[in-house]
């Protein structure tokens, strides 16, 4: 069972080596000329007026919450989809009930404006 992951593990090592090697190479090879004006974060020619580390729109949190909800739904669907041909009508009805409950949830979020960005 675990042997089938050997190749993936070797590829992980090689992929990490490639990425780390690239970062190290570009850090070593490039010139280094530092002076205060240049080191400022880019702000279209201005000095930075506000720090980026502030509160941002709550919409992004909402999307993250919805993502967790619906991604778990997808995770439940994966094993069901593979066994579907064995489960037959029973599996279809069971999953229709499950999808119906989640569909109601989606409709609720939709009607309450949780998916609107205007």
């Amino acid at each position: 069972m675990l042997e089938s992951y050997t190749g993936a593990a070797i590829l992980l090592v090689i992929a990490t080596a490639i990425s780390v090697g690239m970062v190290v190479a570009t850090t070593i090879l490039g010139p280094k000329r530092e002076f205060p004006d240049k080191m400022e974060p880019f702000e279209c020619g201005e000095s930075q007026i506000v720090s980026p580390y502030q509160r941002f729109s709550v919409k992004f949190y909402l999307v993250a919450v919805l993502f967790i909800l619906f991604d778990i739904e997808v995770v439940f669907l994966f094993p069901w989809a593979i066994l579907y041909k064995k489960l037959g009508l029973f599996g279809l009805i069971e999953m229709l009930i499950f999808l119906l409950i989640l569909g109601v949830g989606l409709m609720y979020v939709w009607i309450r404006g949780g998916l609107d960005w205007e």
Partner: protein
Amino acid sequence: MWIDLAITMVKIIFIVTITVGFFAPVLTWVERKQSAIMQDRIGANRADILGFTALGLFHILSDAIKMFTKEDFIPQGANRALHTMAPIIALTPAILTFAVIPFGGQYTLWGKDVNLVISDLDVGLLFVFAIASLATYGYVVAGWSSNNNWSLLGAMRTASQMISYEVTMGLTIIGVLMVYSSMQLTQIGAAQENFWRWGIFLQPLGFFMFFAASIAENKRIPFDAPEAESELVAGYFTEYSGLKFGMFFMAEFIEMVTIGAIVTILFFGAWHIPFLTTATLLSMFDFLGDSGANLVVMLIHIGVFFGKVTISIFVQMVIRWTLPRFRYDQIMKLGWKILLPLSLANVVVTGIVILALE
């Protein structure tokens, strides 16, 4: 044992060479040249070696040298450790997803079974989703650690766009899993030997939705709001220079190849040639002996597979240079209000049709 390890190493070297060494650099040139042709320009044609330009192919070389030798810039107030790590987190998963992607079937060469996939996992497709979504961290960390307003805005957009489309992407392939009853990419590929059993015929709606969702997941035009040049300078990688900047691009190009490969395996018959089964192909090369025929068929299948992947990448490029960018609310609307309900309906319809046919 050792010979298995040697075969695995050969496959890994082949995959790394073809993705990092061939597709990623060549696609940078293709993108420039194709946009030029579509916009009636000439495109990259100046870099030369001794007056020989080779259609501008040497621009790949000059780009690489330039990126390696540019200054590695980290802005004031940035989190230096995270700023350095971000491109590594973005690029590594992009290469790693190829561990489970089969680029051919199974062949017997001189008494040895060769399975053309690095790791033949039974959860193959789930592995692709799991690893590919790790790259989100790379982009968010890149934007957050830069101490730059544009970067942070880009990172926030990236995060919510990528996780939104991950839900959709997961749902659109449920239909394919139901049809083939497997998550193992080698099995899904092997099940499509018959031309009329290709995923595109069994799951036509699933294909279009998956393709749209995966382009959005890769943040390419028309879904490139996270790096919108005219709004956010360059989005999450505004403060990156040199090869670190190049690594984000490499990750994007490698993900294009991944999308091409997944689309080919799930919907376009993987390594199979239409109306030509492996058995027919083997009998055509019977005169070479058993192993010889297997070897020739293997090479043909690898060629066919990467040919199909190339066509898929070409389609992605044409889409990129044809459509304008969507507004951010339109992107989120497409993901949550159109693709999500449609893919749920697709699952239900697929279930009913499968039940009715059996």
